[in-house]
């Protein structure tokens, strides 16, 4: 459904089968499908983990934790069953890549879950897909049924004597559920309130059993690593940042779309070459490099390699791969407000700094955008955001605070332009009247 793009600099690994009919299991088999899991069945669990460690694969869900390392934390012996949980909740604004994987290559996710399960000794894997993605859930459910019908899942997979069940699970709209511990709560049929860590999911996870949680893109990368080798995959990227990444280019670029580029690809080139530059001949104002929770970069800061470490050094985060480009017709105050409105809406309300902080920031930004801001509000917003950092049970509080700090620090002048009753300089005349809200 969503249209595909391409660019000569792309290195297609995860997107290799996009547009090739691989939702059909026979077609998937023709395209090297289920070869990796067969190979993994003949490997020792530690050898699988080592291959993934050597690949330099880091979590594509946002935090960029080493996948092989994460798997190695799962205890070898466990009285309770172990699980693999694929995170397909994809709700970080700016991110639309897992959707393409589910749509074009669902079996690669199944295969990734299976290999993870073999590596850690789990007998069941769950693929959680956000509720809005109903058509993708249907695709995934069919893929799972087809895998069972071929004897690839269930009892005695591939005639190996091993049992491995794969299940689908659906959400019902909640960003916070993408957080790993909230995801487990949701899968257990509860509200998506995070769990206090430690214990970490690798030790006490789903239904109390040790659990590996990985993003859908992370898991879809695994079969390619097993087949091509960790060393091959590592070489595609930069040191400690193996492989490729699906970058979701959105906002005011001429050619938005999801492009698979090597880790460490230059951001400036990504915007001006791959995505065709700024649309309508406008000028670049700012870039949000890794989904709405990552601090923005100014045009002077975009000569940066897009890997976890380089973007961190530049003061932001590679995050979820959502690159949102903002041109000079956009109001930063309004952009900051829309971002905060989202986090306020999605805060689960458990921690006071997150619940009250997002509410207070949204109110201040709203007032500001309407021209009712006071000079001291600017410092207050920064002070308040800084005091949310690291004081919450889950990182959503940080996700709301970090971008706000960057907007205020880097675009202070724009906030000052809204002071003392001055109308927003970017607002077009004849703004629409508000119709009543009927809840």
């Amino acid at each position: 459904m969503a249209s595909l793009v391409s660019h000569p600099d792309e290195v297609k690994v995860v997107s290799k089968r996009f547009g090739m009919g691989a939702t059909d299991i026979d077609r998937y088999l023709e395209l090297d499908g289920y070869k990796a899991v067969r190979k993994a069945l003949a490997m020792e669990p530690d050898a699988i983990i080592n291959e993934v460690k050597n690949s330099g694969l880091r979590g594509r869900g946002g935090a960029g934790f080493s996948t092989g390392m994460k798997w190695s934390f799962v205890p070898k012996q466990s009285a309770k069953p172990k699980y693999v949980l694929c995170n397909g909740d994809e709700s970080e604004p700016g991110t639309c890549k897992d959707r393409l994987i589910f749509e074009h290559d669902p079996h690669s996710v199944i295969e990734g879950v299976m290999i993870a399960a073999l590596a850690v000794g789990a007998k069941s894997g769950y693929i959680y897909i956000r509720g809005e993605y109903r058509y993708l859930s249907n695709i995934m459910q069919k893929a799972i049924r087809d895998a069972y019908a071929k004897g690839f899942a269930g009892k005695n997979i591939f005639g190996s004597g091993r049992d491995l069940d794969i299940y689908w699970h659906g959400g019902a709209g909640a960003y916070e559920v993408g957080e790993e511990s909230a995801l487990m709560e949701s899968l257990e049929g509860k509200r998506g309130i995070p769990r206090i860590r430690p214990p970490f999911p690798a030790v006490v996870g789903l239904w109390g059993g040790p659990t590996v949680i990985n993003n859908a893109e992370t898991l879809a990368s695994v079969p390619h690593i097993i087949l091509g080798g960790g060393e091959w995959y590592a070489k595609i990227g930069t040191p400690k940042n193996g492989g490729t990444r699906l970058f979701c280019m959105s906002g005011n670029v001429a050619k938005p779309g999801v492009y698979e580029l090597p880790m460490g690809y230059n951001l400036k080139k990504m915007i001006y070459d791959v995505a065709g530059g700024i649309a309508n001949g406008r000028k670049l104002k700012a870039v949000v490099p890794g989904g709405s929770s990552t601090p923005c970069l100014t045009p002077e800061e975009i000569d940066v390699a897009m890997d976890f470490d380089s973007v961190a050094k530049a003061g932001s985060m590679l995050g979820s791969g959502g690159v949102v480009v903002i041109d000079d017709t956009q109001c930063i105050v309004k952009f900051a407000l829309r971002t905060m409105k989202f986090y306020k809406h999605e805060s689960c309300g458990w921690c006071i700094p997150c619940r009250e902080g997002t509410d207070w920031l949204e109110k201040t930004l709203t007032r500001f955008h309407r021209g009712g801001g006071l000079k001291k509000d600017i410092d207050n917003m920064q002070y308040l955001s800084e005091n949310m950092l690291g004081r919450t049970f889950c990182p959503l509080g940080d996700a709301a605070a970090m971008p706000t700090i960057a907007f205020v620090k880097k675009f202070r002048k724009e906030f000052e332009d809204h002071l003392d009753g001055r109308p927003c300089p970017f607002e077009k005349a004849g703004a629409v009247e508000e119709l009543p809200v009927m809840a």
Partner: protein
Amino acid sequence: MKFSDEFETRFAEMVPHYPTKRSALVPTLLYAQDEVGFLSDEVIAEIASRLDLTELEVRNVISYYSMLITKPRGKFNVQVCTNISCMVRGGEQILDHCKKKLGVGNKGTTADGLFSVEEVECIGACSWAPAAQVNYDFHENLSVEKVDKILDGYRHG
């Protein structure tokens, strides 16, 4: 309370996938809602009893998830994303156009019960912004003209 055969097959298939019954709750609620239109008292009581939960426990879960609703809405729920990627490409204008054209506010339903409009958070269509979903169908790279065609299509379709 009677659900369709399809629902029953799905439900019977899903419950044994989990070590605890209540784990099937969220997807079950959404499938039930898709059939009935909303989660009525009757639906809640039925699902609670099937999963050995109290009605309060079920309501507690419902109130957490933005897609789960306990009041009816339009046959076609027009969900327009105004989050960042859509906003910078005109998502708010799309939302306003839908509200004006249908004569309702956010979360409002037209008098004939055909349409409701809802402002939603990112729906994972950022690279094809501005985007909306009508029920579960995605509509992308929207313009006001395109929206008119889409809505007319549902009205007459």
